[in-house]
């Protein structure tokens, strides 16, 4: 552990790290490390944890050497991308060596026929997609932070984004990984084929938040750019009407590429920042994107418009030009940040309910706002039932953060009781590890701990994440007394 290293050992370690990655790519001074105390989560979640040292390796080989040095010193290792995570996943909770992957941005191969690319994890999601678009392909997962977030972070969190309604989450788009295992070995898992021979560990590693390995290259699936894209904007007099329209669209057999909802508060903030053309008098809007063959898109566009009108839509508009579509998406994807204009702090909750449970869930969010005296904005992936209520507050106000966290917990419990999940796409990290026992039994967690132990018996890879506090993967019985669990929670 960090404190266990004497000054001489620490300075020797730093020299060795400098020899591996280069002196310019090691940070060990107060200021150089202070910037890694945060990711995009609130400090109430991230706490105040500093790594012992941070390094920015330039290649897989350097990562291997850094990891082996950490293993030799019994130090934790935590991988970090752009630091846009919202659950504290990239925080060095137990100190150790922070491995910042942002310099590893190379694209090693793009294979159009076999529809894969081999890239390094530091590449920014949108940079990857833009490169692929030049050849008529894209990388489907598109989290709102895609201008900033790295592919490695997407893999660690199994990120979603608006377009995973149709295209699926990151896990569905990762074919293989080059990974440094907690044993210090570098290996490939998976491959370009739909099934690999042997047994494929790729799916287990994606979404494991760096607790099972550190990805140094990824083989990502390329998705062909569709021949037609349509974007529809519909305005509704209530959130309820909008959410019933969502169910009606899906029930009509249409699977849009994305189906997003924004409430009035969000619209006002977005319009103030970017002037995207959202109607400021609507209680809710749906942003619907359809893609595919030209005929399918045209036909589905009519169905979507009809279903919206049948559910009280006061306006349905087709964004006809690419510029208009881009502007609407800019507003949607920047929405969280624009809400930062309304209050000094916000807490973004990420939960999921089955799509048909959206209307009561949104009603419950409204109740929470009244009960806990919180302004709550809603901007979320309605098609997936993935809620993102954003609670505005001012940290300096006495008791504000407690009210926010209590409201967040109440919402989690509600969503789980409604058949939902603790996190849809932002990850567990430090934020929600204790909430895991809301939906999983000790037996469930013991099985997951078995997976962790198989990869990382020394528990040095991103420790203090995912598993509830006090739950050691080695001694699984401890949790029994703490568990708040209700069996079979998700069975509706």
């Amino acid at each position: 552990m960090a404190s266990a290293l004497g000054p001489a050992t620490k300075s020797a370690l730093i020299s060795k790290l400098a020899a591996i990655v280069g002196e310019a790519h090691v940070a060990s001074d107060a200021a150089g490390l202070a910037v890694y105390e945060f990711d995009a989560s609130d400090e109430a979640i991230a706490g105040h944890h500093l790594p012992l040292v941070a390094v920015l390796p330039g290649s897989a080989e350097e990562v291997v050497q850094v990891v082996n040095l950490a293993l030799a010193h019994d130090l934790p290792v935590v991988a970090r991308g752009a630091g846009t995570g919202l659950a504290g996943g990239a925080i060095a909770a137990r100190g150790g060596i922070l491995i910042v992957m942002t310099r590893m941005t190379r694209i090693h191969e793009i294979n159009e026929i076999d529809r894969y690319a081999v890239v390094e994890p530091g590449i920014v999601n949108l940079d990857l997609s833009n490169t692929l678009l030049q050849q008529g392909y894209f990388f489907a997962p598109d989290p709102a932070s895609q201008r900033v977030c790295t592919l490695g972070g997407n893999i660690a969190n199994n990120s979603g984004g608006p377009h995973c309604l149709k295209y699926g989450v990151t896990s569905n788009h990762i074919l293989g990984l080059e990974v440094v295992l907690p044993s210090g070995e570098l290996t490939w898992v998976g491959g370009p084929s739909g099934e690999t021979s042997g047994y494929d560990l790729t799916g287990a590693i994606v979404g494991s938040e760096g607790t099972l390995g550190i990805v140094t290259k990824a083989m990502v699936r390329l998705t062909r750019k569709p021949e037609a894209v349509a974007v529809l904007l519909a305005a509704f007099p209530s959130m309820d009407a909008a959410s019933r329209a969502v169910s009606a669209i899906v029930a009509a057999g249409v699977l849009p590429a994305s189906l997003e909802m924004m409430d009035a508060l969000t619209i006002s903030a977005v319009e103030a920042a970017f002037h995207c053309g959202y109607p400021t008098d609507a209680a809710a809007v749906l942003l619907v994107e359809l893609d595919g063959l030209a005929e399918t898109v045209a036909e589905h566009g009519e169905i979507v418009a009809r279903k919206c009108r049948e559910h009280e839509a006061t306006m349905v508009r087709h964004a006809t030009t690419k510029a208009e579509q881009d502007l609407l998406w800019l507003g949607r994807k920047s929405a969280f940040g624009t809400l930062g204009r309304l209050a000094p702090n916000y807490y973004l909750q990420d939960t999921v309910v089955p799509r048909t449970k959206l209307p009561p869930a949104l009603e419950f969010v409204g109740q929470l706002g009244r009960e806990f005296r919180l302004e709550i904005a809603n901007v979320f992936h309605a098609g997936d039932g993935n809620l993102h209520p954003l609670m505005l507050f001012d940290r300096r106000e006495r008791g504000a953060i407690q009210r926010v966290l209590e409201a967040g917990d109440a919402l989690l419990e509600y969503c789980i009781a409604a058949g939902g999940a603790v996190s849809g796409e932002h990850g567990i990290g430090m934020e929600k590890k204790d909430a895991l026992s809301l939906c999983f039994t000790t037996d469930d967690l013991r099985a997951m701990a078995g997976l962790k132990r198989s990869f990382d018996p020394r528990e040095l890879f991103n420790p203090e994440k995912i598993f509830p506090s006090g739950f050691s993967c080695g001694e699984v019985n401890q949790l029994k007394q703490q568990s708040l669990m209700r069996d079979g929670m998700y069975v509706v």
Partner: protein
Amino acid sequence: MSAPVAEHVLASAVVQPEVLTGFSGPDAPPWEVINTCVHCGFCLPACPTYKLTLRERSSPRGRITLIKAVAEGRLDLMDPTFQDEMYLCLNCRACEAACPSGVKYGELVESARAQIEAQSPRTLRVRSARIAAFRGVFGSSRRFRAASAGLRLYQRTGAQRFVRRSGLLRRVGLAEKEALLPELSERFLVPGKEFWPAEGVRRGTVALLAGCIMSTAYAEVHRATARVLSRNGFDVIVPPGQGCCGALAIHSGDLEAGRAAARANIAAFSSPSIDAVVSNAAGCGAAMREYDFLLRNDPDWAERARRIAGKVRDVSEFLADQGLVATPGPLAVTVTYQEPCHLVHAQRISRQPRELLAAIPELQLIEMPESALCCGSAGIYNLLQPEMSSALLERKLANATSTGAAIIVSANPGCMLQMAAGLRSKGVQTEVVHIMTLLDRAYAALDVTAAAAN
């Protein structure tokens, strides 16, 4: 902010005051600005220094974290990394344009620099260079013109060629700086000495900011600007008593020098007959628009500062928004447009220059990649951070020349000097032209056509 905030939220807001421990005085970075940052990281890809280093401390979010750490007393103001980062920032404000939360980052960095300047003199060489520059030369336009005249003598006498060839400058560590020295104008623009009456129907009076570098190195750009404005129906005056806008001093943390410059200019531009204060230097215009913030705590000047700041327009913005009444003549050239940071980011002006270019018949605009990424000039940044500056310049020139355009159009003297110097050292023939010069050429082309027709 127009968004509704429910009453029950405001009613409960018992805000606890926060105490700044690491900063002091009225120019401390304001807490409410620091707190606007929700560390979402959306600024990272917009930041030139992050793009090149890919490390958090060299990003806007990282720098705000450092400022916050100093404010909370967790990091020393004297910390060398903190100081390095405050000065590695180009203050290009690209992050502000990318920031969804509206963090006024420029104010934070300028305040932090002011704190450093006040409390911990940096190395003697840098500090003395800066003081000489700001207080001694930029601080007085008369002295700036005198110094510039000396420089012109140096260029004209052939001493420049001799010194360049001798490698003398390289030996004393000034080679890069010398390459940045502009070819000075034959005739400087002296405020109060020149006037351009409106042609055709008079639409108003605009006052031109002469500035320091512009009035000496680019006096001809001023005259071109004035001709374009007058041709479009505006009386153009250059009020006496004005001086440097103060931007270079403010960006480096010498807020007092900046305030002195601001007061002088506010006085010079205070005539109610002036409809707009027009700048053709993006950095100067951006600074003047923030005179109200700079003098917010000065009871004698705050109101006047607010009034003048509200009148400031960049010339491209002004012309495009007012509309051209005279159609320019054709220019059959290919151009690419480089967006000065203080135009696109600080003033959010991106559409208007392109509209003006589109108004020139036969001109073809080829957009360069990363047109809004800083060229590395950034005031005197190129003198203080040569390594980062030249890396950014390399990238800018690669982007610009990849278009194959014959002319790089810009709207800020610093960028023009920087790019011209870069092109010169590479031996590339591409011309760097101010957008007003180009418009002026287009109008001249009209005159030639008309003359030929007669």
